[in-house]
């Protein structure tokens, strides 16, 4: 099978890669670009561990064919922090112990980033529904919801 060349922007860098027509974007980002912060929990769109932002929209990378990335701008968990400078969400996840094993954390951070972009002041219920596509088996979600609420408050304060 001939491979397809794809050009896109990932975490601010222009990148080119070759992929199979039926290769998933998840495998391509992980294997070809080494972005292993994006996780595979299911491969079927049911766990959110592979959450990425594509042109500012939240997607499961496991449900996207790699060639569909052509011309898009992608952000993964690796692209959230500015060097050593963590985002308020990342800081609040650490402060609030919102991760135990941490396998779901990249997906939650990306999904919560998308939420707070669209809704800077979500209620607890809105947070719970916005993150309902992300599975965490360790925490029972309590500390995750709190961390997102706290980060939202800090971000509102910073922009006020």
């Amino acid at each position, binding site marked *: 099978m001939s491979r397809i060349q794809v050009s896109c922007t990932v975490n601010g860098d222009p990148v080119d890669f070759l992929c*199979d027509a039926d290769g998933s974007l998840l*495998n391509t980002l*992980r*294997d070809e670009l*080494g*972005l*292993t*912060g*994006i*996780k*595979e*929990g*299911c*491969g*079927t769109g*049911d*766990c959110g*561990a592979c959450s990425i932002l594509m042109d500012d929209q939240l997607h499961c990378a496991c449900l996207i064919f790699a060639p569909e990335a052509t011309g898009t701008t992608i952000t*993964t*968990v*690796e692209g*959230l*922090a500015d060097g050593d400078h*963590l985002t308020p969400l*990342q800081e609040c*996840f*650490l*402060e*609030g*112990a919102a*991760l*135990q*094993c*941490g*396998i*779901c*954390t*990249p997906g939650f*951070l990306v999904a919560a980033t998308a939420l707070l972009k669209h809704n800077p002041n979500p209620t*607890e*219920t809105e*947070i*719970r*529904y916005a*993150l*309902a*596509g*992300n*599975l*965490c*088996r*360790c*925490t*029972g*979600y*309590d*500390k*995750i*919801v*709190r961390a997102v609420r706290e980060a939202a408050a800090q971000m509102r304060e910073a922009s006020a």
Partner: protein
Amino acid sequence: MTIAEDPATTSPGYKWVGTRMIRPDGFEKVTGRARFGADIKLNGMLYGHVLRSPHAHAKIVSIDTSEAEKMAGVRAVITGADFPDPSGPAGDQDLQRNVIAREKALYEGHVIAAVAAQTRAQAKAAAEAIKVVYEVLPHVMTVDEAMAPGAPLLHPKLMTKGVDPAPTEPSNVASRAVYQGGDLDLGFAESDVVVEGTFTTKPVHQGYIEPHAAVADTTPNGRTTLWCSSQGHFTMRSLSAKVLGWEPSKLKVIPAEIGGGFGGKTTIYLEPLAVRLSQKAGRPVKLVMSRDEVFRATGPASGTKIVGKLGFKNDGTMVAGELWMAYEAGAFAGSPAGAGSMTALAPYTVPNFLIEGFDVVVNKPKVAAYRAPGAPMSSFAVESLIDEAAKKLGMDPIDIRLKNAVTEGCQATYGPKFPRIGFVETLEAIKNHPNYKIPLGPNQGRGVASGFWFNAGLNSSATVHVNEDGNVIVVTGSPDIGGSRASMALMAAEEFGIDAARIQPVVGDTESVGYNDQTGGSRTTLATGAAVIEACRKVIADLRGRAAKQWDVSLDKVEWVDGQAQHVEGTQPPLSLADLAKGWNRTGGPLTASAALNARGVGSAFSTQVVDLEVDPDTGHVTVLRYLTAQDAGRAIHPSYVEGQLQGGVVQGLGWALNEEYIFDRNGKMENPGFLDYRIPVASDLPMIDTIVVEVPNPGHPYGVRGVGEVGIVPPLAAVANAVDDAVSRRIHDLPLSPVRILDAIINKDS
């Protein structure tokens, strides 16, 4: 609201223990840098694919790999014939057969063969090209089917252990465990109220979000390195060696970060396959399971059938208890029927009892440990019956438990006497909490249940090094599954009297630190923590000796306070850790010490929980309104991660109670092997999980730690069933309490 008191305020005298430091591995985990099992990539690495049985029970007549071997990119194909014939104790032989089938496939998903090729797609295509001829055999899927006379047998030589006289015919019952005391007939004769029922639970999966993954690199001289995500890399080494027919020392196992385990990553699946493929191909090989494979071939926890009967006096005293319990083992013996039997009545002082637990093989994946293995099911039966008794007696559900609760000095139904424990404290904490008094509306109900778990000790080692700058490295061999690096750092900081940020906790590979048993049994903070504390104390003793040398005084003149050596009379300027490290050339060389122990002084864990929920009478759907859990942690080293264990355990229990179950078709094929159809709780299903961390210190640990990981999953099953009964007056004995089941119970009220 989380209302845990911060133990820093309740345990004066500790500076670090009981505080909430940011976990040392946190930055890596929020930036995507942390490397989990599937993230390992080596030069020249091949990808593997596993061929699995499509049948629940079938004789393997032949396997033809010739076509697959010729396909593009294929470098190795293996079958059971590539491993030594099963040998050794029965458990070892089962392990060898579970990793890769030999004569028979015993469940859908049982490994038949595996392929390594240059790409994933090539490996998959080649695996599908392997021709297997099966002779399909009749299968048994439940304990009732498996125990029926004339049932098809999984293992033609399996003789039931623990029955007298010993059986003369094989069966699907691997063993019977018995715990008894007093006089059962007398106990029931004395009872004013007797409650009884038959309870069933379905197999549920541990549901860790990270699928199993293994990467093996075998060099021609036979030295092999294995990267895998597990709850214990030393165990992966010894189990893999058993299947490969090797000495464990031939394998070096490097722990990847682990994306959840809950007991399900305490055994091997892919590891020996990856090693053998790598050996055959002469290249590194990576194997990663799909979610579908995780469901079909790993875990789960046993499905069970439990017949229970309890007798009480009018004042609520429990005087008799009888339990007959059958646990599905899956395809090979080894269900936690024994632990279920031991824990069932352990929280209570019941003078007359008989508990029988049967370990029954069925054509399902071999069960694996799942958080307090065996206890949630037996507790579901017992705590449901206690609730029923309380209603009959007109007693508050907490009061009836207080009436019978074990305390220090009581003899447990499984034998030993309890040392200091905090069960009563958990009951009182719930009773006195405002949640317990909130008025409920129509179709709303409140349910209470308690639970017990032993906790484990086992083997741990630790090595502590002081760096030349006075910072400290703590190496253990216990994978960090939920914040244990933080608890190790806090305990070491407390010992040394230095800032916890100056401690670097490391999870070492099998060649970098002494042997460690798995991160499981709620043991790591207790046992590995004890090894860390002991190693720190050895280094501190050494530091004092060196200060004494430097000052030319006797050792008793030197004390270690706040990170420095001080002269008891204050005649010398103190020497800090950094000063002593700088001078080690002159005082005896580098500063390092190890400790290794088999942990004693395990402290049992108790939990009491209350749930408020609402049942939609039109759909049978349950909404959890609020949840409160009180658990005795002994001492919370890092309170946030302790609360996290309490909350996570509760939510797994809620999934078990409300949604989760393996569903099989009539051919024994799993019908819901994905997160869409096997639905674990999501954020929008839940309220906040309120926690009360009770601290009744464990006298067996330097800081009073008990271990907190497991017991939290025990009470939710019955708590939810009790609350549903409270809401709609239906006592349901079968899990999960799915909308269909509840609706059926509501509609058929009178039947």
